[in-house]
């Protein structure tokens, strides 16, 4: 694209005057500033399945209904008990007791946002859906955008996670377990690709590898004869490119490398000042490190090339990402100077308006050129792989190029993987003993609860099964130790602290713990659905006695 058409787009961008924002934009203003219209659209087209209407589950849903998730379905047969009415904000005290809990919760949650649809299914539970309905039940579950399971009974959870893991096209499953002050959160997914990661990292200005127009412009400045005002307004990027170029001439083409050279380089910059208070030269001095920080492909992106190439069973939703990454790898290895495509965004710098607009234009034009080269390579990759030429739209390509220094690809793990992996358990017992303590305590609770429930199978309500579930410290200790490989032990204090809390409050869904989980899980769900920001990778364990979170 030539400079001419670019300035046309400037024209059209600034001539269209926006009118005042509509009701919906005003309502969502504070969140649109985080995930923009694209994130909001993703959220609004999502349909969540939630497998309980506990206090924790309704807390999670509250934080998703408020920002405007499209739909949710609560699957729960529980009849509201007096204790539910005491700890769940989305029940109406004694008025809700005796009524289906999910129905009450859906009604009260929907009061938060007219734009959200909510459904309750109260005549069956997930185990019945998966077991009695067979394939159609499984397909129904897979049709949701994401599934949330809080304190789901162990057998049902294992069955669900197995079924979802068996198909790489399955939606993510968010698993939450909590008791009293302890909790853990895990997301089971096969692969999660993030273009707009919002990772705080500035792209290179390529001062050490200037593109032709930048070099030419920097060399053309006649510093000697500039008048004082203009001299104090030359952007630091031009100053650095110029000084570096001259330095290299007298140093075999190398940038400053020793501390003494770097000091000398900085004084060269400061000696160029005509007046002692020229801020642009001070800025150039403070940014001088950019001259000896070589612009290369960041190591995170290099390892992304490797992991993307080795990924098998790519689910349809990450396919375009892999193709884009492949094209980026080709781009960085074949197009000089073997860096990521140039970013068009320039930080603010001391300069006159005219100079700043000009340097902005130089960067913009060059970035458009490089993006076009990238698009050419991408078209080839798509062709080679026999994919649809329209597979990836321009908006996605723009965003990909813009974020090429902060891309992320997460390969998920199956729920329960750590319990099966002896090496990982042995290592975590030393490096993350507190986190592992919580995981073991919650695992012990859930397997003992499953045994207890089986023994009490005649009782209908979950309430009845919960009320007399009071495992002893000894039972919990034995159950937790059984998960660890032979000879592996946790520091006694970390183990006892976790097991002791679990024994104290085996079935407590505390309002504050529920509220905190409501926030943590909703953040993760938003990240998974919008494909913006980076979700947790592993088990996030939470201790609300000492108030910390830690990933296992």
């Amino acid at each position, binding site marked *: 694209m030539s400079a001419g058409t670019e300035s046309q787009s400037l024209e059209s961008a600034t001539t269209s005057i926006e009118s005042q924002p509509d009701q919906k934009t005003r309502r969502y203003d504070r969140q649109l500033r985080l995930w923009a219209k694209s994130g909001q659209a993703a959220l609004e087209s999502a349909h969540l399945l939630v497998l309980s209407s506990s206090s924790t589950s309704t807390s999670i849903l509250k934080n998703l209904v408020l920002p405007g998730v499209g739909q949710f379905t609560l699957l729960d047969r529980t009849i509201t008990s007096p204790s539910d009415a005491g700890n769940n904000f989305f029940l109406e005290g004694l008025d809700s007791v005796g009524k289906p809990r999910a129905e009450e919760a859906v009604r009260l949650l929907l009061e938060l946002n007219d734009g959200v649809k909510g459904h309750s299914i109260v005549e069956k539970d997930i185990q019945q859906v998966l077991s009695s309905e067979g394939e159609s039940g499984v397909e129904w579950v897979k049709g949701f955008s994401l599934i949330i399971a809080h304190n789901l009974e162990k057998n049902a959870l294992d069955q669900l996670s197995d079924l979802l893991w068996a198909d790489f096209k399955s939606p993510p499953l968010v698993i939450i377990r909590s008791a009293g002050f302890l909790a853990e959160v895990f997301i089971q997914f096969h692969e999660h690709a993030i273009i707009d990661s919002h990772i705080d990292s500035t792209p290179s200005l390529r001062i050490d590898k200037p593109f032709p127009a930048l070099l030419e412009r920097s060399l053309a400045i006649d510093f000697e004869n500039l008048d004082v005002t203009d001299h104090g307004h030359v952007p630091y990027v031009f100053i650095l490119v110029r000084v570096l170029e001259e330095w290299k001439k007298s140093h075999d083409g190398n940038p400053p490398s020793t501390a003494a050279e770097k000091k000398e380089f900085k004084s060269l910059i400061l000696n160029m000042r005509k007046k002692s208070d020229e801020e642009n030269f001070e800025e150039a001095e403070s940014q001088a490190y950019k001259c000896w920080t070589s612009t290369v492909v960041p190591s995170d992106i290099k390892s992304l090339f490797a992991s993307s190439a080795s990924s098998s069973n790519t689910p349809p939703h990450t396919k375009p990402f892999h193709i884009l990454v492949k094209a980026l790898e080709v781009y960085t290895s074949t197009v000089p100077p073997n860096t990521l495509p140039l970013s068009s965004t320039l930080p603010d710098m001391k300069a006159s308006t005219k100079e700043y607009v000009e340097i902005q234009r130089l960067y913009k034009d060059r970035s458009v050129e490089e993006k076009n080269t990238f698009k050419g390579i991408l078209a080839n990759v798509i062709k080679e792989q026999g994919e649809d030429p329209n597979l990836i739209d321009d908006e996605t390509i723009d965003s990909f190029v813009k974020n090429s220094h902060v891309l992320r690809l997460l390969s998920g793990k199956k729920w329960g993987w750590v319990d099966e992996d002896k090496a990982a358990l042995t290592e975590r017992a030393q490096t993350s003993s507190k986190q592992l303590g919580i995981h073991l305590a919650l695992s012990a609770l859930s397997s003992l609860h499953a045994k207890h429930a089986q023994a009490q199978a005649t009782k209908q309500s979950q309430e009845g099964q919960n009320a007399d579930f009071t495992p002893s410290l000894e039972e919990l200790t034995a159950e937790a130790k059984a998960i660890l490989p032979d000879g592996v032990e946790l520091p006694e204090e970390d183990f006892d602290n976790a097991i002791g809390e679990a024994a104290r409050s085996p079935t407590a869904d505390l309002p504050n713990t529920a*509220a905190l989980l409501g926030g943590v899980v909703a953040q993760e769900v938003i990240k998974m659905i919008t494909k913006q920001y980076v979700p947790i990778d592993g088990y996030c364990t939470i201790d609300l006695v000492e108030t910390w979170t830690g990933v296992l």
Partner: protein
Amino acid sequence: MAAAASSSDWPGRYHHIDQILDKPGPRTDPGFLAGDGVKDFLRGQAKILVIGAGGLGCEILANLALTGFKDIHVIDMDTIDISNLNRQFLFRQKDVGKPKATVAAEFIMKRVPGVTVTPYFGKIQDKDEEYYMQFNLVICGLDSVEARRWINATLVNMVDPEVPESLKPLIDGGTEGFKGQARVILPGITSCYECSLDMLNKQTQFPICTIANTPRLPEHCIEWASVLEWPRVFADKKLDNDDPDDIDWLYKTALNRAREFKIEGVTWSLTQGVVKNIIPAIASTNAIIAAACCNEAFKIATSSAAFLNNYFMLIGTDGVYSYTFEHEKRQECPVCGGEALDLAISPELTLEQLIETLTERQDIQIKKPSLSTPTKQLYLQAPPQLEQATRPNLEKKVSELVPPSGEVTVTASTLPFSLSLRIAYTS
């Protein structure tokens, strides 16, 4: 109170919380009174104050009510705006324009039977020490630094070592986007809000000369419209940030300037964001921080488990990263430290320049300060006669007014404390 509270407590109501209150855990203080003693205190006697009924406040009120606090007071000076509805879940469209404190209190009382929430629609500065003395605990969910400094200093000042009940634990929360922090302040004992002032993000301030002469960013054009153009065009009409028509005028004015200078990116949303200094806010982050605050309140009120010592921060942008640490008390903290702050300045520095330093330094941040020494007034912002009388000092060198190692006391009308400086001169 106790009798009224218990009559609404149906059997099983506190099944979940009672698992914690009926027996200690491995990390519970031996002084914990498991059973009826602690339940009676929590449900019958504890009186808690919530400052702010906004994003954090709504969450805090709901959590406290479910946890079993029955006597809750809430202060907020704001009314409900449509942009609150994406997170302040006690409010509905029909409530827009009504006081937050009142609507929030009514909602909680309707939803959680037996809880009394007493609202006050106004400023925290309207209330005196006697008022604050009635509470066992204070939780703050504010977005204003000024208000937090005020309540922090007020609670620190209230501590009387002879009267243990005069120490009111202050739990403070704050959020921005996916990030937030919660902390416990034991006034006079732990690090206080003022001790950590330098941890605040510095607000971007564009130099006036950039705004006036060399705009480069869309933000520069917007600042030009609001700071320079508005007062010029509407000499006697104050800009109302909440009036969409005013924002609209700024937007169009900024857009015209941007076009003139070929600057891209002025939008309605950016204009509003810059002018109102909008901080992104979402329900989920507020939920995390409010829950952390209320959990500390619960643990402090019941002694059922150790409480936070003393700072918890969480960042949810890249995984869930959190950091729990003990923030250290600052010996020269003007609120809780007692020691004078040593300040080395050039003997050439004028009083006016010293004042500018005090305004800008991240650990001081005192706007419109008045300065005096033990023997004379250096500069007073008010009343007008004294301002006029001390104004000539502004141009004088500090070294002419204050001897080496001399003490200067700095006060500001918005802050209920004074800062002592010990001045040294660099040679």
